[in-house]
Each structure stands twice: as structure tokens, then as C-alpha cells.
């Protein structure tokens, strides 16, 4: 077994080095636990119900039984009753509900006379996963209703028809663009800038730098602006590639999409700077950046719309920049909204950026310890 001596020595050395960085070690051990806990808190509890609108044009008692059956399915939360199909569709278009269920005039009569009839679900194609869920649940609820009602009223048949707004169909490339942009605009700039100050500390250049009469304000904003200038170019190129080379469709104005992306980029940089100001070495900073990214991924609507997560998770999402970004980006890209329509999300992003930067300036200490 030639060469085992050095191998053992190297293994021993690396184990020691790992054990001697307690902060990183805690992070490594704690991270999987924390992530699992977050996951269970967000996804394990009974999930929230999908907001829908009911347009009951029939108003007969049997139609209300169908509505009741939808409600008790556990999937839906009826957030509004609309008087007309147009009104219902508009609520879906505005994002108040993910779907409108339309019960036609004469529905009760059809059931009583044993004729076949149909209800219509107007789905929000911009959220493919949700609309699929709504559709399937609507079919199941309707079948349950049919089974129960046929015992009372004799056989009849209800067909469930599917219509979309922002449709007819959103390709998966289109619906994943926001997710990909979210990862790129969050993780990349954040981890890049997170190590920037600790790198100066490790290379000792920080010791010389803080001998010049600069304030932490100068250092934080110096880094912020420099990294913004460099990463903005990256962002524009990525977006252009998506739109022009991959043919990703954008229903809303492209400048609005760029503006939202820019805000997200700046916010990520601010967040990364706060991590940078607070951490002592590059490894710590890097781990912290990844650690911060995980809740963002779980709770910002990355995998599933936040509305479908548990109430706790929804609360958490409200502090995550990525939540506002994904919402604004999807609404512009898939629903064709304008910048004015997503001004709230933009304001939230800008506010968070300001908070992160101010905190970074405060946290950064001009000392070498």
C-alpha cells in the first residue's frame, strides 16, 4: 500500500481544518436541518386554497349545490362572486383569482330534466401549474357533485369546459423564464459581491484601504456601484439572449421587464453587501449567501405560487425580494402588464435595497479585527 501515509496525513489535515472553522461547520451542519424545517413549514402544513371567482348565471338551488361542492373540495377558496362572465374574467386577468368558474343559465333546469350541460372554467394560463391544478380539481368536484345529485334528480351529465386568459397556452420556456432570471439575478450578483469585502480583509488590502480617510459609506457604495455596472451588462445580455435567441415571448413592454430586473439586481447586490459587511472571511460570506438563497427559493413562488403555500410561508415571502420580482416579472411577461401595474412590487424592491445598503453601511466596521 504505497502512498497511504501521505493520504492519511492529508485527510487528517483537512478534517482538522474543517473542524477549526466552527462558524462554517455550524453552517454546514445546521443548513440541512434548517432547510428541511423550512420546507416542512412551507409545504408540509395543509396547503392554502386557490382563490377562484364564481360566476353563477343560473342562480337556481341546484347550482348552489355545485358551488358548495367546489368549496368543500378543499382546493378552492371562493374570493368573489361575479355577475357576468366578463366581470369574472376580468378578476382573473387582474390576478385576484386564478380561475373563474362559470355556471350557465338554465343549469338547474338541465339537471332536473336530465339533460347534459356544461360549466366553464376560465383559467389563468400565466400560471401553468395552478391552472392545471384548478382544472383537475374542478373536474373532480364536478364528478362528486354529479354522483351525489344523480341519486336525487336522476341521471344527467355536466361537461367541464376549459378557457384561458393570457392563453391559449404558455409554453414551459415562457413560464420558466421568470424562474431562471430570478436565480440569475439573485444568486449570482449576491454571491459575487458577498465575498468582496472579506476578500479585501483576507488579502490585507483592507488594512491599507482603511488608512485612507474613507467612510464605510464610501466603501459600501463604491462596491455597490462597481458591481452594478458590471452585472447590469450581464443582465441585459442574458435577457436579450432569452428574447431574441430563444424566442421567449414577452407580452408586456420589454423596458418594464428590464426595469424590474434591474431593481432585483440592485436588491441582490444590497443583500450581498450586507452579508459581506457582516462576515469575516470569504467562506463564511459564500455560505451565508447560499443560506439566504434557500428560503428565497422555497417561499418566493419559485416552484409554486406563494398563494398556495401555508400561511406562515406566505408571511415569510413578503420579506423576500425574489417574491416581488417573480410576481412583477411574470405579470409583465405573461400577462402583459405595464410598469405602472407592478409599481407596488417595484417600490418594495427599491425599499429593500435601501434597507440592505443602509444596514451594510452600519454593520461595516473600519477595523482589521
Amino acid at each position, binding site marked *: 500500500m504505497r502512498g497511504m501515509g501521505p493520504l492519511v496525513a492529508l485527510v487528517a489535515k483537512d478534517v482538522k481544518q474543517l473542524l477549526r472553522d466552527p462558524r462554517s461547520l455550524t453552517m454546514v451542519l445546521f443548513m440541512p436541518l434548517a432547510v428541511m424545517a423550512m420546507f416542512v413549514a412551507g409545504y408540509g402544513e395543509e396547503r392554502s386554497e386557490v382563490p377562484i371567482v364564481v360566476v353563477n348565471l343560473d342562480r337556481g338551488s341546484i347550482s348552489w349545490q355545485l358551488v358548495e361542492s367546489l368549496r368543500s373540495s378543499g382546493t378552492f377558496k371562493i374570493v368573489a362572486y361575479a355577475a357576468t362572465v366578463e366581470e369574472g374574467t376580468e378578476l382573473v386577468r387582474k390576478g385576484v383569482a386564478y380561475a373563474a368558474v362559470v355556471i350557465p343559465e338554465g343549469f338547474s333546469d338541465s339537471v332536473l330534466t336530465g339533460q347534459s350541460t356544461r360549466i366553464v372554467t376560465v383559467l389563468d394560463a400565466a400560471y401553468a401549474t395552478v391552472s392545471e391544478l384548478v382544472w383537475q380539481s374542478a373536474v373532480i368536484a364536478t364528478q362528486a357533485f354529479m354522483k351525489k345529485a344523480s341519486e336525487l334528480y336522476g341521471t344527467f351529465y355536466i361537461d367541464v369546459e376549459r378557457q384561458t386568459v393570457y392563453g391559449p397556452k404558455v409554453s414551459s420556456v415562457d413560464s420558466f423564464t421568470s424562474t431562471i432570471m430570478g436565480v440569475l439575478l439573485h444568486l449570482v450578483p449576491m454571491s459575487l459581491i458577498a465575498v468582496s469585502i472579506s476578500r479585501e480583509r483576507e*488579502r*490585507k*488590502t483592507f*488594512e*491599507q*484601504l*482603511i*488608512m*485612507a*480617510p*474613507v*467612510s464605510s459609506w464610501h466603501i459600501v457604495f463604491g462596491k455597490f456601484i462597481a458591481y452594478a455596472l458590471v452585472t447590469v451588462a450581464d443582465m441585459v445580455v442574458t435577457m436579450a439572449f432569452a428574447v431574441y435567441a430563444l424566442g421567449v415571448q414577452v407580452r408586456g413592454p420589454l423596458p418594464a421587464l428590464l426595469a424590474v430586473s434591474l431593481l432585483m439586481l440592485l436588491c441582490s447586490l444590497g443583500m450581498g453587501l450586507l452579508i459581506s459587511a457582516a462576515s469575516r472571511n470569504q467562506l463564511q460570506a459564500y455560505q451565508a449567501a447560499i443560506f439566504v438563497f434557500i428560503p428565497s427559493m422555497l417561499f418566493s413562488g419559485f416552484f409554486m405560487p406563494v398563494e398556495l403555500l401555508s400561511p406562515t410561508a406566505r408571511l415569510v415571502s413578503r420579506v423576500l425580494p425574489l417574491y416581488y420580482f417573480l410576481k412583477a416579472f411574470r405579470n409583465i411577461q405573461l400577462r402583459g402588464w405595464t410598469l405602472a401595474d407592478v409599481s407596488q412590487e417595484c417600490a418594495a424592491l427599491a425599499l429593500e435595497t435601501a434597507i440592505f445598503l443602509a444596514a451594510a453601511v452600519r454593520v461595516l466596521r*473600519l*477595523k*482589521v*479585527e
Partner: protein
Amino acid sequence: MALAIEAVNLVKEFGGFRAVDGVNLRVEEGVIFGLLGPNGAGKSTTIRMILGLLKPTSGYVRVFGIDVERNRREVLRITGYMPQHFSLYEDLTVEENMRLYASLFGLKGGEAEERIRELMDEFVLWEFRNRLAGKLSGGMKQRLALAVALLHRPKLLVVDEPTAGVDPPLRRYFWEKFRELKRRGVTILVTTHYMDEAENCDRIALMSRGRVAAEGTPLQIKRLAFGGDLVELVVEGDPRPALDGYGARLVEFEGDGSYSRIRLLVPDASEALVPLTKMLEQRGVKVVRAYPLPVSLEDAFIRLTTGR
């Protein structure tokens, strides 16, 4: 004389370990002050506290009367620092590093240009101005570091082991620079492990295990280490009986019967030599030669820091 640096009861603890343990320093304006001591004595830590790079666990520092913890930026404007380890941007060129620091210190366009050019000429950096700092040789890095420390014409220059790893001609050049700066009124705080350099200091503080073990001029330090000056005499015969009862301690004796060479410890060599010779002659000992014996600071240093 105004005080350039006044450090009072400085203590720095890292974890439970006291790296600096109650250091008091008073550096007068316009002097070259040497901070000596073995590795780990706490020199760099003391310097970092003086510059406000580390917050003292207790104690305080004033630089030209300005409290460092409270008004650090004011102190920085009049202070230049060359750290023990090269701390400029290795991925920037010589010129870019100089320009950066010129701007940070508020030097404006033409003024900055002129100052950079001046320092580049002075420290022979001009021909390397487009080289990345990381690609410079050790000596060039030190020259660049010193040039950057002097950009804003500081009143106080703090240099931590400026000549470590530097060849003899450049070491000499550095010390010529320090003396020139001193003539222009700049106060210099310097650490070094070279005792020949330390002889050039006006005053020295000798640190050991976080404390100041001795402080004074190089001469005073040597006297302190040996308990006085050494003088050497060559005499005829054996002078030892004649020395009995005289206030000088015999530290070395070497005789071959006809001549002897002796070393004596006296409080002050220049004052002691004449009376000593006279006394011996009076007692019938013929003195062939008598001279003060130069002791090296190195001997003193080792004596004081190791207690031998």
C-alpha cells in the same frame, strides 16, 4: 516639544490572550522612534491600535493631540502607514495603485499627477508603472508601499518592518529617506529586527511579551542592558589588585604575565576613562591603551529580552 504619539496604558486581548499588556509610549514630534522586540512581542498590534485599526481593549491613543478612536479621520489625513505585509492591490498596476490612493487622500488632478511623478522618480518606479503590483519583486513592492504611504505628505509616518526582505543597498536607501524625512520635520515610528538600523533611531522602545521592557536612546538602552558602558584597557602586569575598592566592575580579564587586557563596566565611558587611567598610573600600573568598547545594540537586545 509637541507629542506626535501618546499611547496610554494600551491593552489588547485576543480571546483570553494579552498580546499587548499596558504599553505606554510618548513619541516626540520630529524624531525617528524605533519599536523593537522579538517576534510576537506585540509591535504590530501596538501600531494597529495607534492607527485605530484595532480598538484597544483598554487605554487610548492620541496622535498630535487628536483622540484616535474619536477623530480617526483627522488622524488619517496626517498619517502615512506602510504595513508589515504588502497590502496594495496586486491586480492593479503600480500607477493605478498610486492614483487610487492619491484620490482617496483628496489629491486633485495636477497636484496628484505631480506628486505621483515625483514619488515614482524618487523610488525608481517610473519604469515599472504599468506592471501589476502583484508581479513586482519584494524590493519593488516595498518601494511602492513606501511611496503610497508618503503620497499625502504625512506628518507622521508609521512603517512596520519596512526593510524585511530588502537587499542592503535598498535598506540603506530607505534609511536615508527616513533621515531626510526627519529633517523635513516628519515623525517616524518604525519597527525593525535589524539592530544596525535601530542605531539610527533617536529613541527606542524595546518590547517583550506585550510590554515595554526598556525605553530610551540607543545608548541608554545599551547602558541599561549591561548596567553601564564597557571600557577596555591594555596594561602592563596584573592590574587587579590596583582595581580593588575602585568603583568599576571587572567583567573580563586576560593576561599573559607581562601584559593584561581587561574590560571594565563603568557608568559612563567618556567620563570614566581619564580618571581611571590616572588612578592606575598612580598605583603603578602602566596603561598601554584605554578606549571605550562599543557594545552592539544586538547584545543589549538579547540581554534585555531573554534576561541573560
